[in-house]
């Protein structure tokens, strides 16, 4: 208690007590505390999430150790669980999605950033970004009833052209790794387009002018000068799209075929981490089974965390400075 405060009734206390009370009256301390607590809640929730994943997967982790990641058996009867078929399915569908979405996405981004008049570019981009808002389950619905039948009719053509590779051999049922990959491609293409378009737009005009001045065609300017300049940002958008596709659940569950095995052919059914959790979580009888599924969730979490971090680094360094 400040001894120097005046004791006359009604006189305001002086010194540090004064500013504390005034701050309290002004509400600054409280405001700070409330908002600080809210911000801190985010960290707490995330820590809790990681803790729960780690803790509830302990039965499985103790039983299998690191071999969980390399075992390809998923046998609930015998109690043998391995993550490999799901990691395989997740990675294959995502890579296939990227293979389709990258040329499509970067191509469209180039058109929108370099060629289209600004109003058309904005309008089309608006339309494309709306695609990112379509819920996953609707992609799944369309996948089952439109995409899979289309792929079935396209399959003979694919087989005749690409059937010499083990990737396009074997029987085709419709629901397959291929269908999963194509659905994912449609879902992630807006992310690649949106971000790539922005980083390409951010490339300074003088780069283009310099190239055109020495006689390069529009395409050569774009492909050999502008795009390399924006390379890091485009890579970032790709990693972001990858992170999204790894965690995608519903659309993939509805078209991938739900077979926990590793097949080389894209025509074969497969399974992704998210899909198996969605299908089997409510019925995992026994602690080991449920724990194995939660461990799969942990694996997915770590995977997406790493990819997202890479994406962020790439996008940040590009939009901040420029060429890599």
């Amino acid at each position, binding site marked *: 208690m400040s001894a120097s405060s005046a004791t006359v009734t009604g006189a305001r206390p002086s010194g540090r007590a004064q500013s504390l009370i005034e701050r309290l009256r002004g509400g600054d301390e409280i405001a700070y505390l409330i908002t600080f607590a809210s911000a801190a809640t985010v960290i707490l929730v995330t820590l809790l999430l990681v803790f729960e994943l780690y803790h509830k997967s302990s039965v499985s982790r103790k039983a299998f150790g690191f071999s969980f990641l390399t075992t390809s*058996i*998923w*046998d*609930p*009867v*015998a109690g043998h669980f391995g993550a490999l078929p799901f990691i395989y399915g997740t990675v294959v569908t995502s890579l296939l999605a990227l293979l389709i979405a990258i040329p499509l996405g970067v191509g469209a981004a180039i058109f929108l950033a370099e060629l289209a008049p600004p109003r058309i570019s904005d309008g089309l981009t608006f339309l494309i970004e709306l695609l990112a808002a379509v819920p996953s389950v609707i992609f799944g619905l369309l996948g*089952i009833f439109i995409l*899979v*039948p289309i792929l*079935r009719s396209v399959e003979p053509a694919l087989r005749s052209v690409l059937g010499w590779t083990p990737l396009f051999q074997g*029987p085709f*049922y*419709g*629901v397959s790794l291929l269908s999963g990959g194509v659905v994912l491609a449609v879902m992630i293409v807006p992310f690649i387009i949106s971000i790539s378009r922005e980083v390409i737009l951010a490339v300074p005009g003088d780069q283009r002018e310099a190239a055109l001045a020495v006689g390069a065609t529009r395409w050569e300017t774009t492909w050999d000068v502008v795009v390399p300049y924006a390379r890091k940002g485009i890579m970032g958008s790709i990693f972001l799209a990858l992170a999204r596709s790894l965690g995608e659940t519903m659309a993939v569950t509805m078209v991938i*075929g*739900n*077979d926990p095995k590793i097949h080389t052919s894209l025509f074969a*059914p497969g*399974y992704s981490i998210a899909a198996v959790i969605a*299908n*089997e979580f*409510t*019925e*995992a*009888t*026994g602690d080991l089974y*449920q724990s194995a599924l939660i461990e799969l969730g942990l694996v997915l979490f770590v995977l997406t965390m790493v990819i997202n971090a890479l994406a962020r680094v790439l996008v940040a360094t590009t939009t901040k400075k420029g060429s890599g």
Partner: protein
Amino acid sequence: MTRRMIWAAFAAVFSIGISSAQQVLINAAGATFPYPMYSKWFDEYHKKFPNLQFNYQSIGSGGGIQQVTAGTVDFGATDGPMNDMQLKEFKDKRGSDILHFPTVMGAVVPIYNLHGVSQQLNFTPEALAGIFLGTIKKWNDPALTVANAGVSLPGTDIVVVHRSDGSGTTYIWVDYLSKVSKEWETKVGRGTSVNWPVGLGGKGNEGVSGQVQQTPNSMGYVELIYAVQNKLGYGKVKNTTGAFVQANLGSVTAAAAGAAKDMPDDFRVSITNAPGKDSYPISSFTWLLIPSKIQDATKRKAITEFLQWMLKDGQNMTEALAYARLPQPVIAKETKAVSKIQ
């Protein structure tokens, strides 16, 4: 004005949430095999007692066992009876016993989607085991053509569809295959979820039916009513006497005849590959899983009264949905067993 309207709408939505305070909501989950029957029963019972709602979610027998053991539902349902380990787990986790109550009998039929084949196919046990083991790959394999003289089967690959979720229907199917095929028994075995050698996964009886419906040259296994309601072709299966029998009320009831007399006290019994010339070999009981101790008195009353209703009036509704009613000795035994629920 608009602000008041917004608040009114808000209150309306909210109150829909809480107005039904008198309602007793009983949550159950489990087998998809009897789902059409349970769905009808609970609907009729709700009409009789509008304040009682039985919310049954068809998530598969595995789900039923898991959720009732975890205590997240009031009772479960399965067509694959719980094994001793699962019984013990329930006792450890929930502190009481879990009781099996048979409700109806049904059949698991092999469904197929074959263009140009409109006749009903005959399947031998060897054919079924071979197809699901992956050793029989084509529709015109000798194992199939021999039993189906007069049908021109194509040379296309058989697309196998099985369950992706934990399923009692699977249990019935693989229980049968284990009995008729040593190779199946050693390689794959029994369970609500098994390590399938081949095939696509469908979620629930609904998912398998849907998958077969959408996929040419495919075959799967579902409860009879799913094949009937969705007009999917289903085959006859050869029974122990060598006759190809179609699944229907008569053949399923015949399959249960022996078991009805010797029903164990806990009602866990398998009637696959049953003897008798009229028996359909892939028949089964299906059970409700009810904890022997139910804390909530209102729920206990509702559940026990439902069971009594099910054993009397409910049994009269089974045949319309192609499920066979329980044999009389079983009903009598069960009526006594309801009193075990405290």
